[in-house]
């Protein structure tokens, strides 16, 4: 019976072409479909615990690229076909767009009410993680003095030592990664340093490429000396001794992965259970162990409260998705970078 259902669940999910990976947790009778941008390896402990707590569930977890997930959720919302039961993505501007287009299901509980306003919108979208955008560097390639503690140091380094850094500074390709775009957009709002950064990147032929894991890997190997605006959680999870992490001291963007329950979700009850579980202290501990929740206390990170720039879940993020704005940012970006990603 279980096998049959499992087979059915697989059939039901196979038409979703664009997912990168699929895993299942639990072996209950009740199907639940989660779509997320989070790497399975990182989220696995939390979902395993959730499956243990809810043995009646058969959880199918699909890992997607953020833009593909957005397009798919959008069409699922409009046509009502193949909706997920829960969607959570690091490209929170896309999630805000979905909720703004009435694709979300409204829910409120003590756990969700305890979230700060910046991590909750309309009771339809919730921020479940705390992840800073960091600069990572190769410990062997850079001496301690050369390590840029903030953007100004990075700018100086790019200006004073272009030969060392040429072709060895990387960041996300914003066209391929919704998260990379979000960070670039966040930086673009800090107008003063953003212009100089782009200029600096252009001067040293910086590389824009895809995917956190890939970037971090290349930093560990020493191909890249510095990677800018990498999601801290992936670095912590990779656990590579040769890779150093810096929370930029001028300001550090902090992202909270957004969780929503699609309006057409088949199993809203399971999605609600998962949401309340993810916000519970136990799950937050597990997420912290996976690096998805970073403690940002001043004593640990040296980051002043004013330097922590939470990206709030708010309709203002819709600006990030505006096509004219995107076009402008892309143009700036493409002029500055060597694009590695296949388009």
């Amino acid at each position, binding site marked *: 019976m279980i096998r049959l259902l499992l087979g059915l669940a697989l059939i039901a999910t196979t038409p979703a072409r664009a997912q990168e990976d699929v895993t299942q947790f639990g072996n209950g009778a009740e199907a639940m479909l989660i779509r997320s941008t989070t790497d399975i390896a990182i989220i696995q402990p939390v979902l395993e615990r959730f499956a243990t707590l809810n043995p009646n569930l058969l959880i199918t977890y699909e890992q997607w690229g953020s833009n593909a997930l957005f397009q798919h959720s959008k069409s699922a919302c409009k046509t009502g076909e193949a909706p997920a039961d829960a969607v959570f993505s690091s490209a929170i501007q896309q999630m805000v767009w979905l909720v703004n*287009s009435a694709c979300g299901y409204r829910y409120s509980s003590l756990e969700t009410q305890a979230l700060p306003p910046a991590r909750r919108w309309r009771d339809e979208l919730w921020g479940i993680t705390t992840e800073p955008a960091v600069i990572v560097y190769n410990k062997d390639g850079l001496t301690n003095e050369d390590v840029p503690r903030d953007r100004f140091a990075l700018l100086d380094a790019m200006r004073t030592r272009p030969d060392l850094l040429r072709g060895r500074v990387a960041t996300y390709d914003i066209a391929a990664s919704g998260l990379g775009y979000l960070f670039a957009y966040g930086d673009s709002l800090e107008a003063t340093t953003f212009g100089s950064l782009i200029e600096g990147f252009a001067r040293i032929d910086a590389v824009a490429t895809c995917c956190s894991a890939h970037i971090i890997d290349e930093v560990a190997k020493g191909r890249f000396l510095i990677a800018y605006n990498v999601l801290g959680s992936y670095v912590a999870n990779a656990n590579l001794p040769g890779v150093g992490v810096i929370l930029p001291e001028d300001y550090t963007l902090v992202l909270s992965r957004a969780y929503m329950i699609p309006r057409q979700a088949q199993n809203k009850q399971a999605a609600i259970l998962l949401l309340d579980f993810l916000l519970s202290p136990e799950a937050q501990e597990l997420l912290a162990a996976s690096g998805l929740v970073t403690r940002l206390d001043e004593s640990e990170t040296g980051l002043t409260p004013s330097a922590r720039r939470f990206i709030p879940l708010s309709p*203002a993020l819709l600006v990030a998705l505006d096509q004219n704005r995107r076009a402008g940012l892309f143009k700036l970006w493409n002029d500055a970078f060597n694009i590695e990603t296949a388009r």
Partner: protein
Amino acid sequence: MARLHLPHSLTARVLSAVILILVLGGLLVALSIWVNGRLAAREAYDRLLLGAASDIAESVRIQDGAPVVDLPVSAFQLLAQAPDDRIYYAVQVPGGPFITGLDRETMILPPDSIGAGPRYFAADLNDEPARFVRVTRLFAERDFSGEVEVLVGQTLQARQSMTASLMRDALLPMAVAGILLLIMSWIVTRSALRPLEALSDDLTGRDPYDLTPMPSDGLPRELQVMLGAMNRFMGRLDRQVDTMRNLIADTAHQLRTPVAAIRVQAEIAQDDPDAPARKRALDRLLGRTRSLGTLLDQLLSRAMVIHRIDSAPRLPVDLREVALEILEERDHELIAPGIEVRLEIGEDPVLVQGDAFSISEAAKNLLRNALRHGQPPVIIGAERANNRAILWVRDCGSGPDANIAKQLGDRFNRTAGTGEDSTGLGLSIVKSTAEAFDGKVEMTADTTGFRAALNFPAAPEGGRA
């Protein structure tokens, strides 16, 4: 006739009226607050909408012959003042290309409008009611000229919650005030009605035969009026009961002797074989019967007078007419045939407020006494002197002894001089009548004769109906 069913208790009536007023007033005020709150919320958030739309319109520029929007974050931060509301925006050339917007597939059509000013309208945004503003900007560049239209919309949650909070803020104190008013009106009603309760307690606890006046000290004016009326009524009842009691006692007392005498005379007449003795007895029997008749007349007359004193309305009475009527009835010719009775009245009316019948009965008694005890000629007259109206009877005798005069007016005052025909009731009627209309009985004797008079306060001239 459908009659409104009112609760029986005054407190309940007052309270239900107060509640009705409060509820109606509350509803009216709540309605007006709601309307005002809605208006205020709409204006406040319409300004945000317009601000955002103008911001976006400002950011439109022409680049390579096409309009381009450099979407300002500030516009969206403005809209995020309504933190939980969904947003819509679109920038387009009317009827032409879509420049940018939230979603190319979600089209909101503005109503047709003339004029360049901002235009607000309502429409549904993804099945939720929302309010929109349309702002246009005109370009006249070398490579682009025409109109660019900016549409910005927002769902209504923040407006509704602002309206609700405005209403809550205004209604809460109102509700508290309403409750306070209710409590206060309950207390006030209770304290206002407390004398009434005391009164009804007093009445409930009262002996049904107790007709003494109820104390009215410290009572509100409205109740004093009622209580005064009630006390007057009880007083009258008391006097009437007294009168009845007296009448019955008097009648019993007075009738016993004559009836016994009549029986004795009748037995004598029956038993006595001697014809002349029987005739004498029959004569006495006749005399006794006649005086019994007079007695009954007087008893009835007195009862009548006393009854009327309490119950008959007081009307202006001309004492001259009273005197004239007494004379014209010619009763005196029956009582004392041959005695001359003269009338002495003036030109002007002599008016008093009183009851003509009672005064007339009193005057008749005075006349009867004069005829019976005085010396002819007897004169009856009415005059007005110093705001007093006087009806008098005068004879030429010396009047009663001072001792007897002192006791005049007591009931059944029968002394040695009292004849068989006299009942002793006459002057009692006179005295009662005089006192009933605030007057007095005057008896004056001088060398020319004796005068008995009823002296009343005069009624104002022209008071005659």
